[in-house]
């Protein structure tokens, strides 16, 4: 990734120049996602009616998102009744400080963390490391990315871009282990390090896939069992979760868990689906002594206030929209320069981090709609990209582009002028080769990599006119012959 000082848009364009031509990486990502698609199609087909399931899931999330206050407070009530603690964080800083202060107050030394995109969002690890805590990511993919010093490439498959030999080399360099091509051996290497980390840690930090209001529980879905160890062994558990993750009742998970698994990984259900309802209760023999839930707003309420795009809060972070996105497949996750990559990230990041700084992500889409089609909770993803573009222009039009579209509209409102101008298209086509792919070429962004069609001498208009005249002549001739 490029340096922080660079404006997000420049970073995006520069990185896209590189990644869009990185044939090896593009092929690896496409192969991985083609396997995903096969699994997903197979699992999706086992739903009696995927479309109805999707609209039922959307209805659940709609209800929750439109009554966040009610359901979050219900969760808080039930969860605290069992001894859990809830902290409402308005922004990243509040969330980070709460966790840092808690760690300091309890004399924490080392921390183990299971996968949490909210952690990436608030830059939790750098803050913990700066404060002197050891932090180990326990999800295998996240652990690999942590060793590599890289952000997750994809918010569900953090190291999907890496080949096995690259992981082996990384382990050799960072852990001193022998080279291996065997995935089981690679996993065992990580497992040995991670088992130690669970035992040493005084604090376990997790995310959460759902917050269940009626039972006051946090639902965590995973495939490696690492989250169970992360939250179960250390004496303090902190779950950092976005406020939009709440659902009204436990029964809702009967639909949402299989949908998350199907859309996310193509599984019927993920390997482990656990519900956490509070710290260790009297008489229980295991579990953390303290359980804190940090409910993170961090501008989610800004999105909530936008009735057009509020449904973006339905997102269950399955990553399906990334998996089908032809942009993601060609530029990869890091190019986005943001925590939430891909189509949904391009919708929400401008709301979370500022429209003017991040509007380019909404622009960098062909609007093909594959994301919207695949979304298991029915978010109108690609149309929201259009709405972000509109909002960005309304807020602050770009002077040069504004002029272009004003001139365009001026021309297109005047058919006579338009017809006159389009008569020059064939001449333009004849002259174009003289300047093609030079600095003078007005369509160089196109012609650098693709041929531009040349305009035939006669437009449709003129051909149709001649055709009509011919028909009229034929009819009058027939009439005359009678």
């Amino acid at each position, binding site marked *: 990734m490029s340096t922080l000082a660079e404006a997000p848009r420049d970073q995006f364009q520069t990185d896209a120049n590189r990644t869009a031509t990185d044939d090896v990486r593009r092929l690896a990502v496409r192969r991985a996602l083609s396997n995903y698609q096969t699994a997903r199609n197979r699992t999706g087909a086992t739903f009696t009616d995927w479309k109805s399931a999707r609209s039922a899931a959307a209805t659940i999330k709609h209800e929750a998102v439109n009554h966040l206050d009610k359901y979050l407070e219900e969760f808080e009530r039930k969860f605290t009744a069992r001894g859990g603690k809830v902290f409402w964080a308005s922004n990243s800083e509040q969330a980070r400080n709460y966790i840092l202060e808690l760690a300091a107050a309890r004399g924490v030394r080392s921390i183990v963390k299971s996968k949490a995109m909210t952690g990436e969002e608030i830059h939790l690890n750098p803050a913990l490391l700066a404060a002197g805590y050891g932090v180990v990511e326990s999800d295998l993919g996240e652990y690999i990315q942590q060793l590599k010093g890289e952000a997750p490439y994809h918010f569900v498959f953090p190291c999907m871009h890496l080949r096995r030999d690259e992981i082996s080399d990384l382990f050799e360099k960072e852990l001193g282990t022998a080279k291996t091509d065997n995935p089981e051996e690679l996993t065992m290497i990580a497992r040995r390090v991670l088992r130690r980390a669970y035992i040493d840690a005084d604090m376990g930090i997790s995310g959460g896939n759902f917050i269940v209001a009626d039972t006051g529980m946090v639902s965590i879905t995973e495939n490696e069992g690492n989250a169970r160890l992360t939250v179960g062994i250390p004496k303090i558990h902190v779950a950092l979760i976005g406020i939009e993750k709440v659902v009204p009742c436990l029964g809702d998970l009967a639909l949402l868990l299989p949908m998350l698994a199907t859309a996310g990984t193509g599984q019927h259900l993920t390997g482990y689906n656990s519900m956490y309802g509070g710290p260790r209760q009297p008489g229980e023999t295991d579990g953390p002594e303290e359980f804190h839930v940090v409910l993170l707003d961090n501008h989610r309420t800004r999105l909530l206030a936008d009735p057009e795009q509020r449904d973006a809060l339905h997102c269950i972070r399955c990553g399906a929209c990334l998996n089908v996105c032809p942009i993601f497949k060609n530029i990869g996750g890091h190019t986005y320069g943001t925590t939430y990559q891909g189509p949904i990230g391009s919708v929400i990041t401008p709301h979370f981090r500022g429209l003017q700084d991040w509007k380019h992500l909404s622009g*960098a889409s*062909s609007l093909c709609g594959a994301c919207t089609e695949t979304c298991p909770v029915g978010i109108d993803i690609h149309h929201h990209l259009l709405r972000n573009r509109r909002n960005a222009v309304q807020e602050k039009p770009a002077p040069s*582009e504004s002029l272009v579209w004003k001139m365009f*509209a001026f021309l*297109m*409102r005047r*058919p006579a002028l338009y017809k006159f101008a389009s008569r020059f*298209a064939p001449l333009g086509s004849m002259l174009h080769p003289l300047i093609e792919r030079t600095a003078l070429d007005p369509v160089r962004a196109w012609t650098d990599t*693709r041929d531009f069609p040349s305009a035939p001498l006669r437009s*449709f208009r003129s051909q149709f006119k001649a055709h009509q005249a011919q028909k009229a002549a034929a009819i009058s001739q027939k009439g005359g012959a009678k």
Partner: protein
Amino acid sequence: MRVTLFVPCFIDSLYPNVGMSMVRVLERLGHTVEFPEDQTCCGQPPFNSGYWEEARSVARKQLAVFQNAEIILSGSGSCGAMFKVFYPELFHGLPEEAAAKAHAAKTWEFSEFLVNKLGVKDLGARFDGRATFHDGCHGLRELGTKQAPRELLEHVKGLELVEMGEAETCCGFGGTFAVKYPQISTAMAEVKCNSIRETQADYVISNDSSCLMQIGGWLNRNVGSVKCLHLAEVLASR
């Protein structure tokens, strides 16, 4: 039936044969084809760029031009989607909303009109060659057009139709996206064109000339052997 053609600006100038092929097909079926001279552009370029006010001013013009049409037939799924899906959103809550909805309701994409409005699948066309069909995303996902063009092509004598892998993947055109993010757009074209080449087809057919401009542009520059044709051109062949 009286059919009013909407011939998108770039088809008018760059691909006139597509429009003329539509005329031939419709006239052979006995329909009256008209082309209001005052039509220009659907307004999608400024709309997609976020300049909705400018898009509206262009769209208002088209609403007026097509006010008395019974059927508006678009030779491009993308411009068809602009009329059918985005005009109502563009004028949502404005005085023209009803007109935009009426305009949307009478707009048809070419293949959908033939198959689902007229109930015609066999146009007596003959075209010799091996071809693959590319779904334009706006036609496919905004309008739900998937089977109609295939049903029409299956009845073309001499044509061997083969499906490409990842047929529903975008070609990377995306309007102004193609020049604002040319590196991504080109990478997408490359992937699409490789899927096309794997079919060993001689022709790639689509119901959207804008996709064909992208696909043809990449193929001509890099391969040169696969030809692009609009569905109407194939259906008009004898």
